[in-house]
C-alpha cells in the first residue's frame, strides 16, 4: 500500500467530481485497500447527501439566484443614486434659497388630509362637485369636519361615519328650515 492516504480535501474533491480521472482512479483503488480511507470517503459522501437535503429544503424565498457581480453592481448603483440625490438636493437649495422664506417648510407642502371626489351616476344624488370621500381613517374626523364647513357631503366607504347634515350649512338661520319640527310660515 504505497499510495498516499486520502485527506479530507482530496475526498471532498473526489465527491465534488473535481479530481482528474487518473487521480480519481488512484483514490478509488486506495480506498479498496485502506479501510480508514474508505470510511473517510463514506463520511464525505454522507455529508454530500446531507448537504443536498439541506440545499433542496432551503426556503424558496431565499433562493434568488443572481450573478456574483450583482451584489457589487447593486452597491455601486446605490452609491450612485445616493450621490445624485444629494446633488439634486443641494441644487434645489441653492436655486431656491433666496426665494423661500422658510426653507424647512416648502410652499407646496399641504397639510390637509386627503379627499377623494366620488363619481355618482345617480341623477337624484348630489353632483360630484359637492361630494367627497374621506378614506384615511387617521384624518377622517378632520376631513369630515372640513368638508362639512365647506358644505360638502361626505361619502364614507364603511358607511359608519356620521354624514353631516347638508341643510345645516346652507347659510340659512338655524330652525328656518328645520327638519325636526314643523315650521310655521
Amino acid at each position: 500500500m504505497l499510495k498516499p492516504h486520502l485527506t479530507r480535501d482530496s475526498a471532498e474533491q473526489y465527491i465534488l467530481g473535481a479530481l482528474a480521472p487518473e487521480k480519481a482512479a488512484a483514490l478509488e483503488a486506495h480506498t479498496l485497500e485502506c479501510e480508514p480511507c474508505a470510511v473517510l470517503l463514506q463520511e464525505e459522501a454522507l455529508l454530500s447527501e446531507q448537504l443536498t437535503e439541506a440545499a433542496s429544503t432551503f426556503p424558496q424565498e431565499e433562493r434568488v439566484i443572481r450573478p456574483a457581480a450583482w451584489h457589487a453592481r447593486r452597491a455601486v448603483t446605490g452609491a450612485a443614486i445616493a450621490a445624485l440625490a444629494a446633488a439634486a438636493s443641494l441644487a434645489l437649495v441653492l436655486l431656491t434659497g433666496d426665494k423661500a422664506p422658510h426653507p424647512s417648510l416648502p410652499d407646496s407642502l399641504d397639510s390637509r388630509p386627503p379627499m377623494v371626489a366620488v363619481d355618482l351616476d345617480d341623477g337624484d344624488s348630489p353632483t360630484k362637485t359637492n361630494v367627497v370621500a374621506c378614506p384615511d381613517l387617521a384624518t377622517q374626523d378632520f376631513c369630515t369636519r372640513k368638508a362639512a364647513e365647506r358644505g360638502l357631503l361626505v361619502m364614507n366607504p364603511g358607511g359608519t361615519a356620521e354624514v353631516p347634515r347638508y341643510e345645516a350649512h346652507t347659510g340659512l338661520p338655524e330652525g328656518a328650515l328645520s327638519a325636526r319640527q314643523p315650521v310655521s310660515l
Partner: protein
Amino acid sequence: MEASRGTDEESLSRKALAGDRGAWDALVARHHRRVVVSLLARGVRVDRAHELAQETWARLIQQQQRGLLTELRLPNLALTQAAFLAADDARRVRRESISGAVEELPERQHPVDPSVSAERRLLSEEQLSRAHAALAQVSPSARSVFLLACDGQELPHAEVAAKVGLSVQRVRQILCEVRKKLRTALEEETHA
C-alpha cells in the same frame, strides 16, 4: 435560469421515455455521479458502487423498453433503484456467507442494512435548521453557488460557473468553503 433548467430536464426525460438513446446518455452523464455518491454514503465499496450504478441505469432503460416506466423523475428514481439494488446486494452477500459468520468477512464487505443507512442519511429537523442557519450566514453569492450546485438537480460546475459569472475553479473553492461551514454546523449539533 431555473425554469430553463427544469424545461431541459423535462424535455430529456420525455425523449428518454420515448426511447431516445441520446437523451438517456445525457441523463446518465448528468446523474451518474450522484447515484455513485449515494451508494458510497450507504457504505458500499467504491468499485461495487460503480457496478451498482451501472446496473441501476441498465434496469431503468430495460423498464422503459418494456413500457413499464410511465414517468421519469431523476435523480430520485435512479437513487431509489440504486438503494434497492444495494439492499439486494447486501442480502446476497449475507446468503453467500451463510456457511461462515458474517463477522468473518472483511469489514467493508459486511452487508449494508438499508434501514440503518437511511436513518443515518436523513438529517433531523434540528440538524436541518442548523444547516439552514449556517447557509443563511454565508454571503449571498456563495449561497447562490451552493444552491445551484447542490440542490439535487446535478447542475455541472461549469454551468454553475457560467450562470453566476465565476470561474469553475472559484465555484469549487466556494463549494468547499460552504461545505466546511455546514459540516461544522452539523458536527456541532451532533456533539451537542
